């Protein structure tokens, strides 16, 4: 009889756990992602990490949480500042070791639509991405296990993790899951350019000329001038997930870019073609932050490129003069382009209170 009761209670417990384990109990509120229909839904959210209001809130707290670093001084937001479209203004970032990071901090906007993260596309999915900066000795420098332990010792976090994930103990996986939930909500879709596309913003003369140059490929034989930017940076999201060599070096030696991931020589010096959203805010530019200004970037594409054999095909062939070897934009055309690039600054995104530091009264140290 006693045995029967034990078996029965085991079954009951198993049944309860089975109900409990898909962790979204009814108390959690699904988070509704909002974005223009033109952005499309070509993204995948892992089935075991669907977005909830509670998960996003927790992720936001963790994003601004310096306890996740070895020195308790660095959070994700140290190198991904909202006012700079979640990038920083350094060539290379400084983390817990004080030693510069290898590459320039990337803007975190519209990552919902990005499949393979980092300058070299080395990981698939935000959950896997988040672990890298948390652990890297020159970034936050702390294992996920220690981070989980430190959060467990606070008064703040254990009930929040329990609410979101339904477990009594905090795990490293849960930290990266919550961070990813928050990052998926960082949608930028309200720049003057977006408003122009909706018919709600009137371009100035210089912005209009800039837009035309940005969108068009040059065809000197037909008298068409263009900068051909949209070929790689086009579309309403101003982003396509491709990796190109843009002629920064004759050969990439120190940092081989995508070659380090694929092992293929033809991937030497290929890096992500980044989004141009908020580009006026995310200086300095390129994977190593070598260009301080947009003017320097345009000068690079206009006349300063190296021509390695795997230079992006479009960069190799675009010219505004018949038989020309360089893009050949005039000084006025470059100014027009820069006027257009400033239209991509989304002030709603960088001031959205839902993305700001949620820890009250302090910039870096949350209240416990």
């Amino acid at each position, binding site marked *: 009889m006693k045995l029967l009761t034990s078996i029965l209670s085991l079954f009951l417990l198993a049944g309860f756990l089975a109900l409990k384990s898909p962790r979204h109990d009814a108390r959690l509120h699904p988070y509704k992602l909002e974005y223009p229909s033109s952005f499309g839904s070509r993204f995948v959210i892992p089935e075991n990490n669907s977005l909830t209001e509670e998960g996003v809130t927790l992720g936001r707290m963790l994003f601004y949480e310096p306890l996740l670093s070895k020195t308790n001084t660095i959070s994700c937001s140290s190198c991904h500042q909202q006012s700079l479209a979640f990038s920083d203004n350094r060539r290379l970032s400084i983390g817990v070791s004080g030693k510069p990071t290898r590459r320039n901090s990337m803007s975190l906007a519209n990552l919902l639509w990005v499949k393979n993260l980092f300058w070299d596309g080395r990981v698939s999915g935000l959950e896997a991405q988040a672990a890298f900066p948390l652990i890297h000795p020159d970034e936050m420098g702390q294992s996920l296990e220690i981070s989980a332990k430190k959060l467990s010792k606070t008064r703040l976090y254990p009930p929040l993790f329990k609410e979101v994930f339904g477990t009594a103990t905090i795990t490293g996986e849960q930290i990266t899951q919550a961070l990813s939930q928050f990052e998926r909500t960082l949608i930028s879709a309200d720049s003057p350019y977006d408003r122009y596309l909706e018919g709600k913003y009137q371009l100035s003369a210089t912005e209009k000329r800039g837009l035309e140059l940005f969108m068009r490929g040059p065809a000197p034989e037909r008298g068409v001038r263009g900068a051909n930017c949209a070929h790689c940076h086009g579309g309403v999201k101003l982003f396509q997930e491709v990796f190109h060599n843009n002629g920064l070096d004759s050969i990439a030696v120190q940092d081989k870019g995508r070659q380090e991931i694929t092992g293929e020589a033809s991937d030497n010096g*290929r890096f992500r073609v980044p989004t141009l959203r908020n580009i006026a805010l995310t200086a300095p530019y390129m994977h190593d932050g070598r260009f301080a200004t947009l003017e320097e970037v345009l000068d690079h594409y206009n006349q300063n490129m190296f021509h390695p*054999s795997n230079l992006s095909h479009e960069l190799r062939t675009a010219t505004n003069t018949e038989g020309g070897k360089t893009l050949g934009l005039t000084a006025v055309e470059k100014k027009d382009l820069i006027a257009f690039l400033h239209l991509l600054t989304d002030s709603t995104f960088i001031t959205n209170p839902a993305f700001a530091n949620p820890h009250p009264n302090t910039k870096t140290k949350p209240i416990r």
Partner: protein
Amino acid sequence: MKILRLKHICFLIGCVLVGNFSVAAQTLSIIGEVKTPLTLSINDLKAMPQTQLKAKDRDGKEHEYGGVRLVDLFQKAGVTLGGELRGENLTKYVIARAADGYEVLFSLAEIDEEFSGCTILLAHTVDGQALPQGIGPFRLVVPDERRPARWIREIKTIEIRFAK
């Protein structure tokens, strides 16, 4: 001036070091809903029946492309074509992916010449020469299309999938 010269020297060194990537090392894979996944080198392709066809590239000029018909490659991989291209197999599609991550899509029916009446070529030569770097070693040529946006350069992977 000095900087310029240094730049040129670097460029020359770069040419020697990067030079021509070994074309033989670059492969094309056919994966997904296939009987036999394939990874083919340029020599594997050259050993198959070759087709030549003329088509206009983005430059508006006609060129002669040489290579293997995609339908032949699909037959080799055991993709459902011909009599098998019916029922649910008509919901299959093909994602062609380039080395830089660029992707384009075809429906499987488009690839089957018996079905669509069109030839799609996996080209490795243009006007008798190997495709240049940045374009080859392999490129799709879709002769009947007015815009060559699906003439995907540096093609690396062809994946056949079911629409679900």
